[in-house]
């Protein structure tokens, strides 16, 4: 399978609008997690929510012609930034729009007084409104596979390009922090007491976050500096609905399949892990890295900065990691202090500069799904 190029990448998060701005904040050690109250939790919890002041800027940035939800505005702001970077015509019937989300406009359930038609809680209706605002002529496709949605959106775009079903794909992922999703993680006892601590021995669960991230994928590079996706696959544990396989079966299978698709089973220079901060996920991931011969490869989780952004997580973390690869930096795993027995390897704890060629992005989610992809620099 030939390579697919990431010809542009963008994002917005509680740290601000724009990938460059977010990356500077990450390097400066800023986290988007703040304590807040939720109707779905008995005690105050940490979330990475986008401030009202940022949301207030969106209308000015996108000038929508129909009423839009917060999530849709986040997507359109990100899309406009992608379009500004790159010669991509949404009206071209060879170009498609892929939207990735776990819960979409779920906040509409809580709003009785809104100008937004209730039907927009359907992901396909919401995606269609966004696609029309952007000028796409093709019907959009939504990927919703829990916490692996963002990685799978990229994989879907890549496969559709490879199959010749489209020439370029705009892939954008977004999810919100809502009482709806908080209640799920909180009642499953998977919400962290305090800040999340991915891979730490005292980790107690997730902090939820909201963000939007996107890429434009193309079969041809737009510049010699474009990164390329050289491998990717998904798998299922076929084991349990809410707990990952203790033997790390599905993720190990996905990683090994992904590595086998590279030339001479190339090893990545770093791994951008899922690292949610739950006991089972992080132990499972650590075991999968070991079983896949990646024990010595530096890795980190970005959840200590952005929280767990659900369906957006995989795309957000790919975009941030791609920037890290371009800048030859390995990012610190915020929240980690001490290794426990069930985590075999320690994540990176400091910003490290090192010449690098490629990285592996992994994700795992409810329903037993796993997905990973490998990103590489173009030879200079």
């Amino acid at each position, binding site marked *: 399978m030939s390579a697919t190029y990431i010809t542009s990448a963008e994002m917005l998060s509680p740290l601000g609008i724009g990938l460059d701005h977010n990356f500077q904040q990450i390097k400066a050690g800023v986290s988007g997690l703040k304590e807040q109250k939720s109707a*779905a939790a*008995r005690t105050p919890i940490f979330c990475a929510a986008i401030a009202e002041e940022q949301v207030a800027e969106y209308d000015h940035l996108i000038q929508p012609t129909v009423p839009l939800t917060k999530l849709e505005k986040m997507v359109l702001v990100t899309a406009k930034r992608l379009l500004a970077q790159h010669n991509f015509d949404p009206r071209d019937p060879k170009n498609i729009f892929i939207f990735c989300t*776990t819960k979409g406009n779920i906040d509409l359930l809580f709003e009785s007084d809104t100008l937004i038609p209730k*039907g927009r809680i359907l992901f396909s209706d919401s995606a269609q409104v966004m696609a029309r605002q952007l000028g796409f002529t093709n019907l959009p496709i939504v*990927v919703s596979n829990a916490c692996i949605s963002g990685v799978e959106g990229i994989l879907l775009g890549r*496969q559709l390009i*490879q199959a010749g079903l489209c020439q370029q794909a705009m892939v954008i992922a977004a999810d919100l922090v809502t009482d*709806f999703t908080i209640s799920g993680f909180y009642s499953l006892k998977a919400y962290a007491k305090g800040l999340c601590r991915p891979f730490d021995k005292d980790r107690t669960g997730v902090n939820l976050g909201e963000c939007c991230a996107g890429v434009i994928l193309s079969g041809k590079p737009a510049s010699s500096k474009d990164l390329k996706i050289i491998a990717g696959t*998904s798998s*299922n544990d076929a084991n349990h609905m809410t707990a990952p396989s203790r033997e790390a079966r599905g993720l190990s299978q996905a990683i090994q399949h992904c590595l086998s698709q590279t030339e001479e089973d190339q090893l990545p220079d770093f791994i951008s892990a899922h690292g949610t901060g739950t006991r089972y996920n992080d132990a499972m991931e650590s075991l999968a890295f070991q079983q896949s011969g990646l024990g010595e490869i530096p890795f980190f989780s970005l959840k200590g900065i952005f929280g767990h952004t659900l369906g957006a997580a995989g795309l957000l973390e790919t975009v941030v990691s791609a920037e890290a690869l371009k800048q030859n930096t390995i990012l610190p795993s915020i929240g980690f202090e001490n290794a426990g027995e069930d985590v075999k390897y320690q994540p990176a704890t400091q910003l490290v500069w090192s010449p690098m060629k490629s990285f592996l992005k992994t994700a795992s989610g409810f329903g037993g799904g796993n997905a990973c992809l490998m990103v590489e620099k173009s030879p200079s």
Partner: protein
Amino acid sequence: MASYCIIQPSTIRHNGQLLFEARVGEEQSFFLEAYRYFDINYPKFHKMDRFCQLGFLSALPIVPEKRLAAPSKTGVLLASKSGSIHTDQHYYEKVFAADNIFYSPAQFTYTLPSAILGELCIKHNIQGENYFLLHGMQNLDLLKDYAKQLFHSQQLDACLIGWMDYYTTDHFQSCYLWVEREDLINLDTIIININKICFDYGKATVS
């Protein structure tokens, strides 16, 4: 061998043959009656939401119990328009309208439209590529094209593909197809036929 199953309110059809029909007056308990018809012991069925029950029943007649394809080379690709909307509303009412945050952690899982992927993978030991898509193109064409590509690029040997929607007790539909590598040569024709049977059905809505 390719095999398909279509479920509509009160009927289950397998490869064009009527497999099960709810008796008059029993439409409300269609899912339970259909489960009994298959005569299996799978207690987890009763914990699933309607959307997952619909998917579970749709796969039962067509996924072979013994198959040559390895679990890691078997995939599942599903698409829907409704997604989990029915369960989302139910969960919202039970948790927030009733102010009961510990209502049911298990039910939260079913507010993920992709929960059906997990249920199917567990039941049929499917470990390969798994996708849940939502779109307004009410036919199997995209799934067919994507499955073909995954057979080619990811070396799948078998794949379960399907469309499913669940809105209310009398508004739901599924159309599942089991495809093996040897079926690829005829897949376009098979899909054209299934699209005709299934999506000319009156309730199809394309916005």
